[in-house]
């Protein structure tokens, strides 16, 4: 169990430290400290007595569960974790499920504790049925999560890749250097993509809710753009790893550097199409253009920066966290177009220096 704890649980909290910090700041730092207890008690009562907050809460727990499963799946794909395939495949299914259940309980501890708190308040305030429902939902989530995690493990040891090819929209895309990344996204990253888009949506809603008096402020929009680009780090990392490892042989193809860099840029653009549409529907054309340029520049900069940290997800997440803090400080100063061009040029320099084989 210690091995599971170190690989999955400890790493999950380490990698998502920035996320937990952000959520803690939102939940406990945004309001008046004197009103915090009353605020949270009010939120819990709302969950217990109103179906809309209850649905939202369960949806958020589900997103958290999906995120933890996604993390486990990515971890299982790492070469360093290959030994698990040999050692844990010899365990009985019951023993494996016990390991996974304990792991899922530990990873989902924040939502589990919140669910227990809500249930206790529910029992205290005589909302017994909703309190029981919350307990049942959280146990069902964790149990189902354990089962899915074990399926990921099983798929890893049986290399059940042919099954993944039943996907069908991916097959409709033409085969080209540009679209292989998109085919990979549609075949193997659908879940990650969906979660990232949900995060983008929640970030937009949440930030505009907190800063409702700054609806048309470009600096705030740029910070939101920064947040949702950074929320895509797992997706960008997986895309880069796919291009660097699974498509290594493609570096023997007679493509120019410009072609390869431009293809990566276009792939990033395709990843962020929903956000680009949101920008152009929300702001004036010129402002949207600058924000879209910034979004693309930041995403390609992050994408190419992965080579700087040696294809290590943990280091990349730390890098993006500090980059986020840095950008949040400099964005209000202005010059977004200049920042975008600097990011784009730096991405090109990193691409030339680190990812090209000469």
């Amino acid at each position: 169990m210690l091995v599971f704890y170190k690989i999955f649980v400890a790493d999950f909290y380490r990698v998502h430290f920035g996320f937990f910090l952000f959520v803690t700041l939102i939940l406990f730092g945004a309001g008046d400290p004197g009103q915090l207890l009353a605020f949270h008690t009010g939120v819990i009562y709302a969950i217990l007595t109103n179906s809309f907050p209850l649905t939202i809460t369960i949806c958020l727990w589900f997103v958290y569960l999906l995120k933890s499963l996604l993390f486990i799946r990515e971890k299982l794909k790492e070469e360093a974790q290959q030994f698990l395939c040999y050692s844990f495949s010899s365990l009985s299914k019951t023993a494996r499920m016990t390991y996974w259940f304990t792991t899922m309980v530990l990873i989902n501890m924040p939502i589990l504790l919140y669910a227990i708190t809500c249930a206790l308040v529910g029992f205290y305030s005589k909302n017994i049925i909703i309190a029981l429902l919350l307990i049942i939902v959280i146990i069902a989530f964790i149990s189902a999560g354990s089962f899915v995690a074990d399926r990921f493990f099983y798929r890893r040891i049986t290399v059940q890749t042919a099954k993944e090819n039943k996907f069908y929209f991916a097959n409709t895309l033409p085969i080209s250097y540009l679209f292989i990344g998109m085919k990979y996204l549609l075949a193997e990253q659908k879940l990650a993509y969906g979660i990232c888009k949900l995060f983008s949506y929640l970030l937009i809603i949440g930030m505009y809710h907190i800063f409702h008096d700054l609806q048309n402020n470009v600096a705030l929009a740029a910070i939101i753009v920064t947040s949702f680009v950074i929320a895509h780090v797992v997706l960008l990392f997986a895309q880069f790893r796919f291009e660097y490892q699974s498509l290594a042989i493609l570096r023997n193809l007679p493509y120019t550097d410009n072609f390869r860099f431009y293809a990566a840029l276009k792939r990033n653009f395709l990843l962020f199409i929903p956000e680009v549409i949101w920008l152009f529907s929300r702001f004036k054309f010129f402002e949207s253009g600058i924000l879209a340029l910034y979004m693309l520049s930041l995403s390609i900069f992050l994408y190419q920066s992965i080579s700087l940290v040696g294809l290590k997800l943990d280091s990349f997440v730390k890098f993006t966290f500090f980059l986020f803090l840095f950008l949040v400080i400099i964005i209000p100063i202005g010059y977004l177009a200049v920042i975008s061009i600097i990011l784009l040029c730096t991405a090109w320099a990193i691409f030339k220096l680190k990812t090209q084989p000469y």
Partner: protein
Amino acid sequence: MLELANLSKSYGSNTILEIDHFSIPSGIFWLLGHNGIGKTTLLKMIGGIEPFKGNIAFNGIDLRQSPVEYRRSVNIGEAEPLFPTFLKGKELIELFAKAKQAEATQVSFLLKTLDVHHYINTPIGSYSSGMIKKLSLILAFLGNPSLILLDEPLITLDKESQEMIQTLIINSWKERNVSFIISSHQELPITASSLSKIMIRDRKLVLLDNIINAGLL
């Protein structure tokens, strides 16, 4: 002729290759050396896949200065090819054929020669290691390369396919003057008169005849 100049490759502080200058003329070359000495790394460097310090040029085309032209002339087949499992073999062949400007007749010929018709339309994730190896070899022969690098081309192949590959190599050399550098721990039963052996020894590349003459082997 392949020219390697001031070529070096390190992993961290461990330098595995340090070649001042080495020329490899046209022909079929068998690259030898014990495990971990850098044969695969060297082939990947020459194939433009692995980063390196120094210069590599083939027939006067420098990899740094003319990467597109160089890569049209030099193809590679990896020892343990890693392809996206969700793609079909046919899709990968289409991509390579287009990039390497291979003609449809060449593609058909290679598919037929290596007998891959029956599975080429299925996802690579369902292939055995031998089937993946065949796909990798087809990709290595596509287009009009003047040099083909083959890393352990015979492993995981059945006897019949091994013979096919050997015939392909000899015919490519005789009919189209395609040179080969082949790394293999298995004996290469190639009887072409131009077969020479080169070896990685003490991070350098040397012609085996020179080693024998110097009494080092």
